[in-house]
């Protein structure tokens, strides 16, 4: 309630008209917005959505790499790297697939070390003295096999060999994960763990930046979601409005068609559509999802129309000779907008979900483009070794779903007071 200034109270002369103070009258939308603002969860959702959109739109501009840039040397590097000091101020890190990299202390990757084919005499280390004094190639080969069995790799740095014994990765009983031997000195303790400067989210199996790819994936996934909801809105509202307004036989036939479409699992129709039109990337998925999910919207709008068209303002419009098209567009649909918007908000996460699902079974956008679903799918084969490659797109999907669900719940409460929880 706005406070009324004391100064405003004064006697009016009889000639003066009485001037009244009104509280600003709120339209339906202003009122809904006011109620939405009160709902904390939905504001969190709204902020989350804005952040995700910014992440997808602005993010790729800021990162130095594009989604398709490959640096083959730096593949499969995680977001956090354990570094080992082999010399004063010289650090190395080891990737999950046992490549060795020179790295700066702050986590900046410098170069990949060349790997040495293990053959011929090796170190002076006691455990591996067998390698020394072996001459014949067949013996060498045999020992080479053994070297693989003892899980040993060798790299070259500044003309010196670095040996890496990674048996500790396989045999959990061993005390140290890695035993690094450089200039006859064994290093077993990692110096520290640093953030990967070049790839904050790690790199994938082709040396592409996962962060950039997740950002780019946001663009694709959100485009699919928004456009599919728009298609769903256009078809669903038109179809539902016509069926509901016309009523009678038209309504009956149109709704039977909806029933039939509804009695087939929607994912199957999408898959069939995608197979039918051929996988032409983004727009196929958008169309497929949009063309299938409108049935729910059509039902909802029809129900609204049936209720609204009996009301007096519609009768008045008919009596005034307003055309059918204008009655639907100007009078009926605006009045049904609340439930329609709620349904659209809820449609977006399910479109993201469906797109991820389609990409996951191989019907998504084609490489090198990637949506969140494709990223998750690609990460699947290496899940045990490179879990971060799945983790980030999965988090992105989950956060988006949560944000839209929160906003949707809030909108439902704000736009339809009848449904408010008691």
């Amino acid at each position, binding site marked *: 309630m706005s406070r009324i200034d004391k100064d405003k109270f004064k006697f009016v002369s009889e000639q003066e008209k009485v001037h009244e103070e009104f509280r600003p009258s709120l339209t339906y939308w202003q009122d809904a917005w006011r109620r939405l603002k009160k709902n904390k969860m939905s504001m969190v959702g709204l902020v989350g959505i804005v952040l995700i959109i910014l992440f997808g739109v602005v993010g790729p501009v800021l990162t130095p790499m594009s989604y398709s840039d490959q640096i083959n040397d730096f593949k499969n590097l995680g977001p956090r790297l354990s570094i080992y000091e082999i010399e004063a101020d010289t650090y190395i890190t080891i990737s999950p697939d046992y490549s060795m990299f020179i790295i700066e202390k702050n986590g900046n990757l410098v170069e990949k070390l060349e790997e040495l084919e293990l053959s011929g005499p090796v170190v002076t280390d006691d455990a591996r003295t067998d390698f020394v004094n072996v001459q014949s190639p067949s013996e060498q080969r045999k020992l080479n096999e053994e070297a693989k069995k003892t899980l040993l790799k060798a790299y070259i740095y500044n003309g010196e060999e670095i040996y890496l014994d990674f048996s500790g990765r396989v045999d959990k009983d061993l005390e140290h994960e890695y035993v690094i031997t450089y200039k006859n000195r064994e290093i077993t303790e990692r110096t520290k763990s640093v953030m990967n400067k070049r790839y904050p989210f790690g790199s994938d199996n082709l040396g592409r930046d996962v962060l950039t790819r997740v950002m780019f994936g946001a663009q694709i996934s959100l485009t699919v979601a928004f456009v599919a909801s728009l298609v769903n809105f256009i078809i669903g509202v038109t179809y539902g409005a016509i069926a509901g307004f016309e009523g009678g036989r038209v309504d009956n036939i149109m709704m039977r068609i909806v029933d039939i479409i509804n009695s087939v*699992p929607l994912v199957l129709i999408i898959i069939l559509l995608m197979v039918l039109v051929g996988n032409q990337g983004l727009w196929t998925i958008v169309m497929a999802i949009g063309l299938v999910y409108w049935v729910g919207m059509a039902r909802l709008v029809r129900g609204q129309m049936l209720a609204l068209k009996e009301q007096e303002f519609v009768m008045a419009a008919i009596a005034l000779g307003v055309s059918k098209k204008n009655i639907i567009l100007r009078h009926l649909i605006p009045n049904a907008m609340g439930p329609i918007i709620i349904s659209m908000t809820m449609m977006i996460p399910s479109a993201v*979900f469906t797109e991820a699902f389609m990409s996951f079974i191989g019907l998504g956008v084609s490489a090198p483009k990637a949506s969140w679903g494709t990223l998750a799918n690609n990460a699947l084969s290496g899940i045990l070794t490179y879990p971060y490659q799945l983790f980030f797109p999965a988090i992105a999907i*989950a956060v988006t779903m949560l944000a839209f669900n929160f906003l949707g719940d809030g909108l439902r409460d704000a736009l339809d007071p009848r449904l408010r929880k008691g």
Partner: protein
Amino acid sequence: MGKYFLKRIVAAILTILLIATLTFFMMHSIPGGPFTRERPVPESIMERLNEKYNLDDPLIVQYYDYMKGLVTFDLGPSFSIIGRDVMELISAGFPTSAKIGLFATIVIVIFGIPFGIISALKQNKPIDYTVMFMATLGVTVPSFVIATLIIYVFSGLLGWLPSFGIENPLGYIGPVIALSGYSLSFVTRLTRSSMLEVLRQDYIRTARANGIKEITVMARHAVKNALIPVVTYIGPMMAAIMTGSFVVERIFALPGMGGYFVESITNRDYTTIMGITVFYAAFYIIMILIVDISYAMIDPRIRFEKGAR
């Protein structure tokens, strides 16, 4: 009553036939035959292939053959897995899918409904918040993420569960959890809101005022009525769980139908795609039909409502 059932059954059969027809013509309108390869197949081989699979017949004859086969449960040979019938593939894969789906449904019913009820009875208490938080998480995390996380944590890091296959009974745990995640959360939320709705009804107050024991009020009056919307959801859900299992089957490398379906899509194996689509659709429709009929038997209001509409 009999008339209502008859109407529903006829409608279901017609829907299945319609879907089969649509699928058939959709598949046949795709440019290029099933044997189109990157390297062109020699004309004569193409002819032989077309002849073998009756693809040189006029479309209408092929359609007639297909529908005739459908009635006798013969879905034709697979185009890419040589020497196997689509029906064989389905009967090889379906038991696995059905078993996992059934277990998932059982998990959903025995966990989802009690959690929903408890949550409603303890509304706005910590237990309610915990359950609702879990349920929201379950709705928002895709099944393939749950599945891979299970593999990563329980098979990879802890080594408690096998990471693929179901030879070991423990192997069921992962797929069932991944498959039931979404619906479990949904059922919990649905039960909770429906229970809250029922608890506000006058007849609950009347029952309490009559001095009936609280537990009897809950069991005989509240829960029974609160479960009506849940039952409606569970029928189609069972069918949907089986269609949604492609991904889970793929991740856990289970020998179910989902694997064949995904494979048939990548191979453009049209007969298999058609066969499995029709099979799934038929299964889905039959499940809905069973639920609708049993529902109409329990609750006579439904019949009249549907009739009046």
